[in-house]
């Protein structure tokens, strides 16, 4: 097996991520730290989607809904803290412990409701119904005039507060996100190797067989859906903190598509794949226009997506099992 290579990759990756603020500073590009943080956050969201997509075989086309719910919960709590008003009789808060946990809890609750209904269907119907629910949430946010409607709102109170840390400092916030991703990835690995994870994989490979073995598959899939929703909600809370801005754009259906692409690009059903998928996706999105600008191609600079789309298709065509698998197999003969 490729355990050795995996360890090398992990160590290398850990070293790069851990020294990222220094590296960026050294090349005089410190402003890119925000983009790096965004990759960490989207990696958490993509990983959470991978739990149901890659391990459970549930193609959810509405995962951004939970990301958005997480962002809105943290954002709204901060909004009321700043305004010194209440929501549902509760005061706002800028405590990370409370706000982030509330984000996780409420996105988990949304996932429970949406999942309970959606998981009664399978296949294309499941894809469509998860998309429909995400759209409902999108339009719910658009209709919230108090919170800026379709413009969204700024978190004037700034980032959440953690005792002993200054999250307003970009480097501190980067390391909080890095720690969150590391903990999430380790928890994820533990989960997919647990008995629960085995059931989930069994449902993916052959659900009728699981039922015949005595497994009430619906409730296991639902719990996985809730865990995935909670993970995305947590990522949403971090994203709201990163930009100090919340808008319905987080829930736009193309965002759900982006998350799917990240997972597929990086490697479906692998622990680290979604991280590489998120990194590749967001870096291409960020640097393609800059590269075209540097090449003196203003037309492509503006319409960089014309190149982005075919690039994604090519990557998926040539790295069929995803970027992570390609990294693991790189330089190796095919015949083993």
């Amino acid at each position, binding site marked *: 097996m490729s355990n050795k290579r995996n360890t090398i990759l992990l160590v290398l990756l850990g070293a790069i991520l851990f020294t990222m603020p220094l590296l960026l500073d050294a090349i005089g590009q410190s402003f890119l730290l925000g983009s790096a943080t965004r990759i960490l956050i989207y990696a958490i969201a993509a990983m959470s989607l991978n739990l149901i997509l890659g391990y459970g075989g549930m193609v959810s086309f509405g995962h951004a809904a939970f990301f958005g719910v997480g962002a809105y919960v943290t954002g709204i709590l901060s909004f009321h803290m700043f305004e010194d008003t209440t929501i549902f009789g509760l005061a706002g808060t800028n405590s990370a412990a409370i706000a982030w946990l509330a984000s996780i809890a409420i996105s988990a609750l949304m996932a429970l409701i949406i999942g309970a209904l959606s998981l009664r269907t399978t296949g294309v119907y499941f894809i469509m119904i998860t998309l429909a629910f995400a759209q409902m949430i999108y339009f719910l946010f658009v209709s919230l005039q108090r919170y800026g409607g379709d413009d969204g709102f700024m978190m004037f109170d700034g980032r959440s507060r953690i005792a002993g840390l200054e999250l307003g400092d970009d480097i501190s916030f980067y390391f909080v996100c890095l720690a969150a991703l590391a903990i999430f990835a380790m928890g994820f690995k*533990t*989960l997919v*190797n*647990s*008995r*629960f*994870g*085995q*059931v989930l*994989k*069994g449902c993916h*490979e*052959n659900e*009728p*067989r*699981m*039922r*015949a*073995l*005595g*497994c*009430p*598959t619906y409730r*296991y899939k639902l*719990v996985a859906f809730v865990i995935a929703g909670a993970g995305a909600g947590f990522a949403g809370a971090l994203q709201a903190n990163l930009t100090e801005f919340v808008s319905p754009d987080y829930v736009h259906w193309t965002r759900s598509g982006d998350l799917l692409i990240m997972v597929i690009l990086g490697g479906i059903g692998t622990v680290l794949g979604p991280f590489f998928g998120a990194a590749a996706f967001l870096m291409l999105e960020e640097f393609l226009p800059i590269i075209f600008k540097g090449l003196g191609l203003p037309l492509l600079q503006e319409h960089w997506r014309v190149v982005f789309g075919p690039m994604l298709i090519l990557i998926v065509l040539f790295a069929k099992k995803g970027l992570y698998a390609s990294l693991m197999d790189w330089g190796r003969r095919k015949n083993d």
Partner: protein
Amino acid sequence: MTDAPILIVENLSKSFGALKAVDGLNLTVQTGELHAIIGPNGAGKTTLVHQLSGQISPDSGSIRFQGLDITKMQEAKRPHLGLVRSFQITSIFPQSTVLENVAIAVQMQSGHSFRFIKNARADKSLSDPALSYLQQIGLESLANEPAHTLAHGQQRQLELAMALALKPKLLILDEPMAGMGADESAQMVSFLKSLKGTLSIVLIEHDMDVVFALSDQISVLVYGQVIATGIPDEIRNNPKVRTAYLGEEE
């Protein structure tokens, strides 16, 4: 062990549109016996199995297992009572290893799976029993191969190992030898013989030699109804059966 029947099916009916696949079927399986169900194609054998396992629910009639009415019980609950089936068309986890296939069955048999922390792959309490079932059926040397790389006959054996891992009291085997070669078939017959007496078995099978060699009781299913039940000799000499079914072959 008492002499009470383990399975009593009364007046079971299931239609698909105008087709009465199972039509007022009665069947009693005694505890500990190997009860074969034979019948021409389209007689309703697989529809019967699907209803016993809960994959489809009957239009009318009742199924009692160890005295308990399970007619409407959810499919996933039945294996926990000891009512376990295998599939006519091989149904395994193709991407998982042979050992993992059996280990998940062992896991299903050992309580709920809302266990999120402990590594299930390194769990001896799952892999050890799984390995012993593989040994029992002769697949232990292939334990770490992906299941889809196995030959058809071996996949059939794996399927049986998974069923056994659920510790069945009544095992419903839907054509376990379907598509097997002669050697594999003979192996399977001797394996089923070794199981006899340790549990009750309902065997759906086309091969008459196999059925007559293994069965304690045989029921003949034609057009969704049992037209005769008896020991192999009675069935062999039953004129109704000969015209309805065996006659075609002899």
